[in-house]
């Protein structure tokens, strides 16, 4: 295959380059994200001290930026498992170069998402009440609430994707172990769990990997479906819609793929990995982005059509207000970023221009954040009774925490590329031309 043209012998060296002594640039970047995270931490600390009043949340909009962030980050966490599990089952070779970083991103995104329910409930020190446990007061969580299903869905997803991720890392960690010295060697030896690349181990590993892929696949669907039901099972106009589950899943994959590309395009440049992350990979990812963008666009249009067709005055009203009411700006931003901005990707020329792809994916990230904002806030602000209407604007504290969450996510990602191979070494070797093949063919 012409797209795979790196020599076998270079793989270890090139990929493990990110693990070498960090450059000044890396340290500056790291300082920046940690400082950004501190801004978020400070904002949260302020909220804990002062109470929820410092957030813009008030009656009737009880869900605002925090829930938007939660849904956004859970969504970002979808690309990893899609790429690593579903594309593995589909035998799509182009996944081999990107799945490791996408999986890592998934885990950090879910870790980021997990913060928001805790931030959102206000009294974070009793957030463990979310977990059902036997207690002397015989008080149980509300099993009927989709919010609790979220606790299960997200934690299951997190467990399975981290195990999947760690299992996938084993052979590569062993490679680092074999090249490291001193304390580093001891630590990686522990993490490698005694991997010795024997035939026996590989057989079990491959069988296990296949099973995990099959287990993880339905989870890609289930997590965001459950998140969508936080909204859809209620009867709030604009939320109660049967299409929500598949629509949210497609949106999650859409935003996740966009985020993978937003990260990988500069990453490939900084670490000179052009040989491994080729235009072909970004072409393929762009096609997935186009597909999911179309599904999302189909859902937007369907919702509008059915809102009109249903003759339900409340439903029709909300959809009218979304386009032309007080929250029209985020709405049109969402339409532009998610439906219009990806359209140039239909052209090969654009798909092969990584600068253009990069900015398109940035726009998609923005659009997908506003999609959730738009769904959540506009419906709550103008529910059934006009007497109870009210407007919501995010406060600086909420925006600070949101900013901090991006820094938190990138901090983990930067740490990851410093300590683990961000491309899967063994999988890259699988698709590379075996070193002795030429010699054999010459005979």
């Amino acid at each position, binding site marked *: 295959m012409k797209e795979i043209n790196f020599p076998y012998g270079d793989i270890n060296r090139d990929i493990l380059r990110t693990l070498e002594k960090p450059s000044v640039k890396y340290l500056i970047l790291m300082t920046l994200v940690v400082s950004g995270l501190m801004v978020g931490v400070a904002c949260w600390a302020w909220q804990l001290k002062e109470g929820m009043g410092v957030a813009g949340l008030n009656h009737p909009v009880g869900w605002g930026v925090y829930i938007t962030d939660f849904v956004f980050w859970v969504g970002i966490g979808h690309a990893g498992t899609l790429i690593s599990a579903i594309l593995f089952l589909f035998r799509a070779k182009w996944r081999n170069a990107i799945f490791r970083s996408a999986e890592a991103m998934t885990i950090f995104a879910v870790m980021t998402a997990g913060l928001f329910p805790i931030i959102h409930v206000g009294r974070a020190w009793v957030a463990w009440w979310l977990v059902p446990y036997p207690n002397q007061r015989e008080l149980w969580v509300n099993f009927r609430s989709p919010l609790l299903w979220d606790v299960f869905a997200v934690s299951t997803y997190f467990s399975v994707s981290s195990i999947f991720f760690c299992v996938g890392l084993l052979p590569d960690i062993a490679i680092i172990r074999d090249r490291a010295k001193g304390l580093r060697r001891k630590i990686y030896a522990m993490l490698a769990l005694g991997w010795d690349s024997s035939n026996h181990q590989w057989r079990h590993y491959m069988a296990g990997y296949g099973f995990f892929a099959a287990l993880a696949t*339905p989870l890609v*669907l289930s997590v965001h*479906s459950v998140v969508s*039901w936080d909204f*859809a*099972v*209620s*009867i709030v106009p604009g939320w*109660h*819609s*049967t*299409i*929500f*589950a*598949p629509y949210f899943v497609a949106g999650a994959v859409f935003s996740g793929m966009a985020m993978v590309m937003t990260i990988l395009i500069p990453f490939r440049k900084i670490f000179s990995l052009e040989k491994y992350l080729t235009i072909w990979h970004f072409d393929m990812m762009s096609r997935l982005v186009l597909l999911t963008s*179309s599904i999302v666009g*189909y*859902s937007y249009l*369907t*919702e509008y*059509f*059915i809102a*009109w*067709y*249903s*003759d*339900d005055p409340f439903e029709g009203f909300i959809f009218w207000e979304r386009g032309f009411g007080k929250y029209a700006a985020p709405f049109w931003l969402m339409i532009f970023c998610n439906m219009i901005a990806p359209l140039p990707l239909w052209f090969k020329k654009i798909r092969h221009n990584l600068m253009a792809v990069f900015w398109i994916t940035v726009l998609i990230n923005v659009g997908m954040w506003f999609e959730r904002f738009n769904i959540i806030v506009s419906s709550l602000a103008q529910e059934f009774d006009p007497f109870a209407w009210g407007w919501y604007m995010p406060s600086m504290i909420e925006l600070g925490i949101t900013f901090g969450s991006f820094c938190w996510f990138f901090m983990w990602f930067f740490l990851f590329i410093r300590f683990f191979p961000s491309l899967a070494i063994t999988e890259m070797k699988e698709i590379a031309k075996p070193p002795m093949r030429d010699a054999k063919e010459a005979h």
Partner: protein
Amino acid sequence: MSHHHHSDYVEVISAKGPTQLSGRMKGIFITMAIVGIAAFALGLLVDQKAAWIAYLHNFYFFTGLAAGGLVVAAIIQVARAMWGRPIKRFGEAFGAFLPLTIILLLPLWFFGAEHLYEWDEWPEMKAQYEQMDSLKSQLASASGEAKKELEVNLNMAEAWESVEHKYHHKVWWLQRDFVFGRVLIYLILLTLLGIKFMNLSRRPDLGLANEKNPDLWPQPAGWGDLDAEVGKAQAGMSKWGVLYCFAFAFLISMVSYDLIMSLDFRWFSTMFGGWNFTSYILISWGTLYLVATNLGDSSGLSKYFHKLIYHDLGKLVFGFTVVWGYLFFAQLMVIWYGNLSHESGYLITRIHHDVWAKYGWTAAVMVFAIPFVLGLGKKRKMKPKTYSVVILISIMGLWLERFVLIAPASWHYIRTPGEGEVAGYQPGVEMLLGLDLVVFLGFLGIFCLVVSRYLFKLPLMVISDPRLDEGVNRH
């Protein structure tokens, strides 16, 4: 596993020349068609509503299958799938039925609609409403039969008031000529796009076959250099294939809203369109499995179908079975939990009602439970004879599912007193389902005749396709 390398398929297929359906099969299909048409005609004489329900149901099913077969072929093309190339032509051939759907829509438009769609009565109700004052004054002095009729008319007039008040968009959207005019346009668009894709695909195959055996195969008009023709066709199919896939999703959604969802005009569901076109993809993968199994043997091509092709098709059927289950549940969940009367009524009729619930749940078991459990293993998928039975259950389950979507609304809608009664007796749903099955046979016969007529004039595999070799000789 050692696998024989095949490189002779171009020669073998082009040496054969265009074929025909065997006389026996032709006889069977024609008999099926005649029986189906006769049953429909008999149905029209006895119980018009039942006959039209059966007609709409099977019309919808086979329209989706025709469009779905093509979409499956387009997916193989667009996804650059090598494995599916040997069977791609079969999927394309389903599209040959598409032009006929345009004609088959017309009887529904001009004769069937009044028996099926409650909204078709609206213009009549409106007319009564416009003369409500005179109705009232006549009623004051009327007696006997005349009084009864006036009362019926007055009821219609009053019902119109509430319809117009509650459903002012639908009153505009759901007018017979408007609805069927739209559907006609959707079907024409689908047909034109489908034919474009089919023509792009068959041209280089016919050209190649003609180069090999000029006596047997006609040369396409304006035939040029083979490589250039193949390159052009492949690029064209990749482009038009994408367009067809998108058009399929959009147009089948719109057809399902207009023809099926509107049967119960009070109900709406944003997932309805997506759910319908996804099920048609499932039906089409399954049908492709059945066709590949049967036609592969009878045409002697099965030696070119790698064993794994059945595994791959089986996995796709399994995958879409899971997606169907997911969509079914996601729709049910939201409606059940929301518990709004205008939504849940639709469900209650289909999963709780004495008459319909058994069909609703049977469909769910046939489409999801059985194919899910029996589709888990690899070995079974690779035994075409065994797995065909599983797939047949799934397809008939989807047929039954469509029956449950379509039949109840019209069945319980009585436009004129006494309608649907046979000699003062209202036949049961079992009778309706029986009639429906015979009409299904008729449609199936016609479908097979049309599709095989198209298919057998062409090389049965896409012999000019550069990816075919990889599909036949898999590693």
